[in-house]
């Protein structure tokens, strides 16, 4: 278990530092964050035609309210935590890649829900927007990471058990 923790913390430190490097921010994180704003706007537009996205900003054309998706709001840190956990836990490369791919989708799906909810909460009540933005959503996203990782461990355990059964069946 201590080996898992050491690899997890080392991977977390390296990935988090790499994420903060200016070239990574410029060429990966910022375009990705812009993509999140575009996807969020695309999801909202069929229901609310006043929503427009411009770069990392999601704006209500009628009321003028806008949210800018910044570091910490793009789900990258949560993905890094999941990535570090998956890398640290022993499994095959294929299993790790599946976990990272599906985990990324699960985290970003909830993150888009976060962005859209904050966009409307901000137009309704700024105090509640601040609460959800600063305190509640970061915790819910981390809980999502925890659930994804727990599901991954269960999936690994199920596969291990079925492999043992198959081996004993063949014997």
């Amino acid at each position, binding site marked *: *278990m201590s080996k898992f923790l050491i690899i997890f913390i080392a991977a977390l430190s390296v990935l988090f*530092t790499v994420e903060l490097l200016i070239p990574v921010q410029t060429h990966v994180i910022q375009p990705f964050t812009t993509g999140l704003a575009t996807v969020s706007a695309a999801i909202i537009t069929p229901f609310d035609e006043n929503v427009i996205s411009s770069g990392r900003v999601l704006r209500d054309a009628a009321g003028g309210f806008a949210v800018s998706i910044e570091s*910490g709001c793009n789900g990258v*840190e949560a993905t890094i935590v999941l990535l570090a956990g998956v890398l640290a836990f022993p499994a095959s490369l294929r299993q790790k890649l599946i976990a990272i791919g599906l985990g990324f989708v699960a985290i970003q799906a909830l993150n888009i829900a976060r962005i859209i909810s904050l966009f409307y909460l901000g137009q309704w009540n700024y105090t509640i927007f601040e609460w959800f933005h600063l305190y*509640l959503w970061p915790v819910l996203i981390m809980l999502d990471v925890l659930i994804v990782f727990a599901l991954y461990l269960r999936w690994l355990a199920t596969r*291990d058990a079925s492999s043992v059964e198959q081996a004993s069946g063949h014997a």
Partner: protein
Amino acid sequence: MRDIAFRQQFLTTLLLMPLTFLLWYAAGPALTYPATIVAGLALEGWLPSIVAEVFTEGTEFYVVTHFADINGSVVAANQADHDIAFKLNTRLVSYGVPFYAALLWSSRVDSLVGRFCLGLFVLWGLMAFGLVAMAAKDLMLVIGDPFLTLGSVPPMPIIGLAYQTSVLLIPSLAPVMIWLFQLRDTPLWRQLADQLESSRSSE
């Protein structure tokens, strides 16, 4: 059986979170008080030539410097009739407490109060570090050279990294890590450890 325990854990955590966040909000500065004391002592001890005073008002942590701003230039405070001070929101580093409480209180472990106190003690240490990192980031950006040229001050990238880690990662990740560590005597943890061992031996 394991499925039920798994679902129960996370559903109970979700159900408890409104209550724990309400208690955290109602507690105001009480839950962060030890962290602000430690952060204040650390800042005054570390940077006596920069930090004049630290104090708390409600959930705001104030850092008053020996400097002032005159027409955009940073000068010694005795050359002006005011000081540069920073107001830090302590809730930004303490919102992990209600999350940790919800995780722990929804777990089937003994001596909940003892474990919670121990976890809170660790979180206070991390909160104090977070407040120092937030103050250091503000000092770096506003005071600049008088702060950065001190021998005891780390390079700018380290301050930036400490700030980002303290605000973006630690408040939500530390509760999970502490909670997992405190589960180590439980059947769930032993099962996880066994799985790690078997996976490692089959590699």
